[in-house]
């Protein structure tokens, strides 16, 4: 294509805040059409937010967006589309209508917006136009097939075809390769190359560094809602990118502790569900805090759920104190001395409509009953009051409804119920997500204290500083597998990040 047809997309000084968070502060982003641009950052860096601004999902940001030197007003999705900016979100199923055909889904926007005055649908035209669009971008799917019969990868292609059905100058792909197999990824990349030759600019959000280096011309790195750097991608290597993503973190919020790992307590061998987890083995000793590192989507949550019996495993053996134990349900795991603090606190960890007392005693209520049968509200009250003061839960009393407490205090309750249950192996899945700094420190101290008492801790998190700050040893997950086992004292956030993004040292 000719050079003078290239247009420049600029986003200058973009800032946006949500209640309690400054998601972006003065971020700049620019790229040319006909190129592909990687946008990368750790969790919460603001890359998805920045792209949502560009796609018109928000109207309360500040800053300016220019296309070919001309300022644009993008305040709603239609503004972005009218200017040729299209986005394909990660959750493909939310954007497709499963019981309609491929052709109808591709032509959806045209059918909705460009059929004024036309009441009768031309099926022939819909199918032939959809086929024409697919031919143009080099994909093959029967136009009459129902979308619910497609694979995830094919659904994604349908969305890209939909974007191409209107005039498309810039296409944003948000983590498009996360659910794809290698061959599907290659197909997607071929399609991207083709779109580039057509003059479309591709913005590619991904955690997977190797593929960014394979497909992208330029890279922009964000961190904590701020612009870090932007450069041609081959002027950097993977280690450098990882370093830019991390930056320097606040020190001193983690407890001082020395490793005192005892005998082997919990062992998992070759755990797999053949979906998100592919053959993970790990060992945890008494008094040891073992990290499961990895970015969002690496399979950490799925692994935790399998280890706790909350999700079925296809293969693998779990041994507790050297004995192979085959539990299939969480209540069986609890009987074996396991406890899990799940990631989705409000949905899975606590009963929001119930009182603090009910929540704290639910995991092990029998000691607080009479004759192991009748509820004894006096005993419950005493047990919950002592737990409230031990964990420093900020609540008027034990009869307060949990819905009225802050996220940090809710998390302390989700942890506290297992302290009353006196478990031996604790699985923490992102325990500090959505928790304020003070409560975070309390939670770290609590975990360190549990290890001190000889409990075994599995600590899954996508925050690299937590891995360094609290664990003794860690397994770094990438794509459902353990990419590397690291001893915390001999590693760095950069090294963890490299393995988390699919790199090799």
């Amino acid at each position, binding site marked *: 294509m000719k050079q003078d047809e290239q247009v420049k997309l600029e986003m200058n000084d973009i800032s946006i805040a949500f209640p309690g968070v400054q998601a972006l502060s003065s971020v700049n982003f620019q790229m040319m059409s006909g190129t592909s641009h990687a946008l990368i950052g750790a969790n919460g860096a603001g890359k998805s937010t920045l792209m949502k601004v560009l796609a018109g999902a928000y109207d309360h940001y500040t800053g300016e967006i220019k296309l070919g030197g001309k300022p644009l007003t993008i305040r709603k999705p239609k503004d972005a589309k009218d200017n040729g900016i299209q986005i394909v979100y990660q959750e493909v199923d939310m954007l497709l209508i499963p019981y309609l055909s491929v052709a109808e889904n591709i032509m959806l926007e045209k059918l909705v917006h460009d059929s004024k005055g036309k009441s009768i649908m031309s099926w022939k035209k819909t199918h032939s136009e959809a086929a024409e669009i697919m031919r143009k971008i080099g994909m093959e799917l029967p136009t009459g097939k129902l979308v619910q019969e497609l694979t995830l990868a094919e659904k994604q292609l349908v969305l890209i075809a939909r974007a191409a059905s209107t005039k498309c100058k810039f296409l944003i792909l948000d983590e498009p390769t996360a659910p794809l197999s290698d061959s599907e990824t290659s197909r997607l990349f071929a399609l991207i190359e083709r779109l580039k030759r057509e003059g479309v600019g591709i913005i590619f959000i991904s955690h997977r560094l190797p593929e960014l280096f394979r497909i992208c011309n330029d890279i922009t790195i964000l961190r904590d809602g701020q612009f870090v750097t932007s450069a041609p991608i081959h002027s950097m290597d993977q280690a450098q990118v990882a370093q830019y993503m991390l930056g320097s973190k606040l020190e001193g919020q983690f407890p001082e502790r020395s490793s005192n790992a005892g005998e082997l307590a919990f062992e998992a061998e070759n755990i797999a569900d053949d979906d998100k987890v592919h053959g993970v083995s790990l060992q945890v000793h008494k008094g040891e805090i073992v990290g499961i590192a990895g970015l969002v989507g690496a399979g950490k949550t799925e692994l935790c759920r399998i280890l706790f019996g909350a999700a079925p495993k296809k293969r693998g053996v779990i041994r507790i104190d050297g004995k192979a134990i085959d539990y299939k349900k969480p*209540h069986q795991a609890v009987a074996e001395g396991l406890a899990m603090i799940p990631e989705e606190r409000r949905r*899975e*960890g606590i*009963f929001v409509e*119930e009182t603090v007392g009910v929540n704290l005693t639910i*995991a092990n*209520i029998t000691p607080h009953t009479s004759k192991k*049968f*009748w*509820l004894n509200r006096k005993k419950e009250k005493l047990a919950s009051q002592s737990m409230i003061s031990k964990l420093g839960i900020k609540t008027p009393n034990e009869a307060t409804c949990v819905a009225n407490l802050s996220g940090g205090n809710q998390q302390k309750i989700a942890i506290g119920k297992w302290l009353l249950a006196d478990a031996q192996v604790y699985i923490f899945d992102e325990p500090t997500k959505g928790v304020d700094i003070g409560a975070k420190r309390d939670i770290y101290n609590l975990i360190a204290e549990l290890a001190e008492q000889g409990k075994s801790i599995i600590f899954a998190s996508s925050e690299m500083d937590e891995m360094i700050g609290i664990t003794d040893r860690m397994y770094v997950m990438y794509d459902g597998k353990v990419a590397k086992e690291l001893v915390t004292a001999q590693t760095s956030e950069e090294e963890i990040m490299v393995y988390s993004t699919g790199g090799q040292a």
Partner: protein
Amino acid sequence: MKAANVSRKRINWFDFLYKYGTLITIVVLIAFFGLATDNFLTKDNLIAILRLISITTIIAIGLTLSLAVGGFDLSVGSTASLANAVIISMFVWHSQNFVVSILVVVVLCALIGVINGFLVTSFKIQDMLMTLATMFVIQGIAQTYTRGATISQNMIMPSGDYAEGSIPAIFGQLGKQPWIIIIMLVAVLLVHLLLTHTKYGRYMYMIGGNAEAAKLSGIAVRKYRFIAYVLAALFAGIGGMVLAARVMTAEVNAGAPYLMDAVAAAFIGYSVLGSGKANAFGTLVGAVLIGILSNGLIMLSVPYYAMDIVKGAVLALALGITYYKRKH
């Protein structure tokens, strides 16, 4: 500032009405019917109301258990029909004694509960839809068993002879006061103790509140949901037997009309004393409310066939208040 005060006051009013509205309504209705009619406040009539609601309450208590675990057993009315048909047939057709006949029905109802429990816990189908299906199946079984006819003493059998068995007098006593009322009160008391004073009741409510969190707290969700359905079928069976004792025959689908009354009673019960959950005491209060309405309106010469309009409206109101409260 002023606006905030006003809204706070309004919410307090709503909370007050939510908590005590049902009880106040009952008092108001009693006063109203007492003034408007001559016979409403007589001892005989009040006992008649309790007798009237006893079968509804026993069936509704079973339904309450299924609601407590977040389920919904729509098949309780059909199960009562089947229990009614089987118990009468055991006496009339098979000349069995009191104990054997009751045991047969209890085992049969437990089996229905096991099937319901298996179906709702094994498939990811909404409980209400699954039990809608079993409701039809059980109803059909009851009709097939009775060959679509009423079973009664001295009925003519297909062979042309008269049925020889008779219903024991002691069974007939179960359908008369004071026993029918005592059975109802014992059922309410037992389920009240189970749900609010034992750890198993706590587990059931937690499952009903948030099944995923209950599972991840180490509660055997499937087991307790299963138990709730078995108990629901057993209470429906007791309701069906008491119904049989009351009318001494087995009419076609005799239990079916009790389903909607039971549903209404249980849902009115959600708001009693602000519990916000299915509960035994609330279900009793709900049944009392419906009983007073039916009885009083009949005394005011409202035709019986218009009664469903009133019951439906009361149920709509109770549901409206409960769901409004959940959202606010």
